[in-house]
């Protein structure tokens, strides 16, 4: 019974991705609805078979409105994960997985539409932020500034250098250069370009920070039993989790009062253990990873916390070429990620995970069977999944 209802990813859809302000002919909601409709079509399903919606990050594109736009006649379940930013991206997947596996829903669309040209630029000061009084009067206005002190402390504690941060940015760009749908597809990036770029908030330079873009992305989750009759190879959600260590609710985006042992981290140490235990696999089993790259330094932390190398070893790990497509042992962010493909709050990373397991990536890892995907790092909650080709 349990196996028949195992959650599977059967469809994915996305809009075009542009720099922020690039989509002016359609509303953010329309862009999101088109991605959702594309995902349902890709799955080989109809809107009549969709009975649930999940999103995150205070998504303004409500599930109730999405059901109207799609003409879904019978919604039985919906959910949104608390917390801003992309921390809840895989959290929304974990909600959908739980709904499908428990029988509360049969087919759920997980989506995110984010047109920063129409809503607001996440890199700008936000007076509505929780705890704003403790950050804005000091000029700690937005995520790049807020997460930079974690990266600084990480580099203070471990042998991590600017060249290691650079490698995350350069890897993303090299992969985006192979992905025609990536915003930065046509723009090369050299180490010299990286080092010569302006500081945003030390130790983060321009190319350490994710793009600000317009776009939407959606995936469809249903049971393994239903997935067997659908067109694409079956991709199972082995495990999807979301959660947080203590005090991260007023962590980097608040007042930086999380425990010292956890400070220079992506808030994933305990969550990673839960994830691997639930999935029944080890880090060495993972063929490729899509790691939330809002800021380069957090990717290094996640490589350690998800067990691909030891504490403090992520610099040496990436320096060895381990994360590069076509030669490294763990190619990461193979679509270009959020540094170079698009910033859809992590849903585009999940879409790339699906492409890898279907064998459709523009930086395809040969015979990829298992992929780790994370949600936004260094926030509460953060989230992650291991998905696998059955």
């Amino acid at each position, binding site marked *: 019974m349990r196996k028949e209802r195992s959650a599977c990813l059967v469809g994915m859809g996305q809009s075009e991705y542009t720099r922020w302000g690039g989509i002016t002919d359609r509303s953010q909601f329309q862009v999101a609805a088109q991605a959702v409709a594309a995902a349902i079509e890709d799955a080989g399903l109809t809107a009549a078979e969709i009975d649930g919606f999940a999103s995150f990050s205070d998504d303004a594109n409500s599930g109730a409105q999405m059901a109207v736009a799609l003409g879904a006649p019978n919604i039985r379940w919906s959910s949104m994960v608390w917390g801003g930013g992309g921390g809840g991206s895989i959290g929304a997947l974990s909600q959908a997985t739980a709904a499908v596996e428990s029988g509360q829903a049969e087919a759920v669309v997980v989506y995110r539409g984010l047109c920063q040209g129409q809503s607001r630029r996440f890199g700008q000061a936000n007076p509505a932020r929780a705890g704003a009084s403790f950050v804005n009067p000091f000029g700690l206005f937005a995520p790049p500034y807020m997460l930079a002190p974690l990266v600084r402390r990480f580099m203070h504690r471990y042998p991590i250098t600017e060249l290691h941060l650079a490698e995350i940015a350069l890897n993303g760009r090299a992969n985006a250069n192979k992905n025609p749908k990536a915003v930065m597809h046509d723009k090369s990036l050299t180490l010299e370009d990286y080092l010569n770029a*302006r500081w945003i908030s030390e130790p983060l330079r321009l190319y350490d920070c994710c793009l600000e873009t317009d776009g939407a992305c959606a995936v469809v989750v249903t049971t393994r039993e239903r997935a067997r009759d659908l067109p694409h190879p079956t991709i199972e959600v082995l495990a999807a989790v979301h959660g947080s260590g203590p005090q991260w609710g007023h962590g980097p985006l608040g007042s930086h009062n999380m425990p010292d042992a956890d400070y220079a981290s992506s808030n994933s140490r305990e969550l990673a253990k839960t994830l691997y235990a639930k999935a029944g696999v080890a880090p060495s089993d993972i063929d490729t990873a899509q790691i939330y790259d809002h800021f380069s330094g957090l990717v290094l932390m996640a490589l350690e916390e998800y067990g691909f190398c030891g504490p403090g070893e992520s610099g040496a790990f990436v320096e060895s070429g381990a994360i590069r497509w076509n030669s490294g042992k763990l190619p990461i962010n193979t679509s270009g990620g959020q540094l170079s493909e698009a910033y859809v709050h992590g849903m585009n990373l999940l879409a790339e995970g699906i492409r890898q397991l279907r064998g459709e990536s523009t930086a395809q890892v040969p015979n990829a069977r298992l992929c780790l995907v994370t949600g936004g790092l260094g926030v509460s909650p953060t989230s992650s999944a291991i998905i696998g080709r059955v």
Partner: protein
Amino acid sequence: MSYFPADMPRPEPTMDEARFWDYCSKRSLRFQSCAHCGTLRHPPIAMCYRCHSCETDYVEAPTEAEVYSYTVVHHASHPAVAMRLPYVVAIVEFPKMPGVRLITNLTDIDAGGVKIGLRCSLWWDDIGEGMFIPRFRPVDA
């Protein structure tokens, strides 16, 4: 003259944060502590995470702190800070009062001279209308 221009965002305390800023308006840096078990916590929050008491005291912080981490900001994401670039945002802790960290600015220092562990002392920045903001400068500045 305040450290940032007058259009810099000001504290807009919620009900749970009001006492912290009331003390700041009197040039007193005080952190919330649990009246029942003494646990310090920051930012102020309605309930003690150790004992669930909602009774609070406010404990005077030492005037000397240490840089726990920091960032040097070079990009103005709000027009008010353009004239101050680059400026230093520091996360400071208090060796004589462990348990809380404060976001603040480190002033009177070249950005290149900031280090984790740097000792710094409190000064009060008058931003007008009766409000003062706690900022820090190196102890030897």
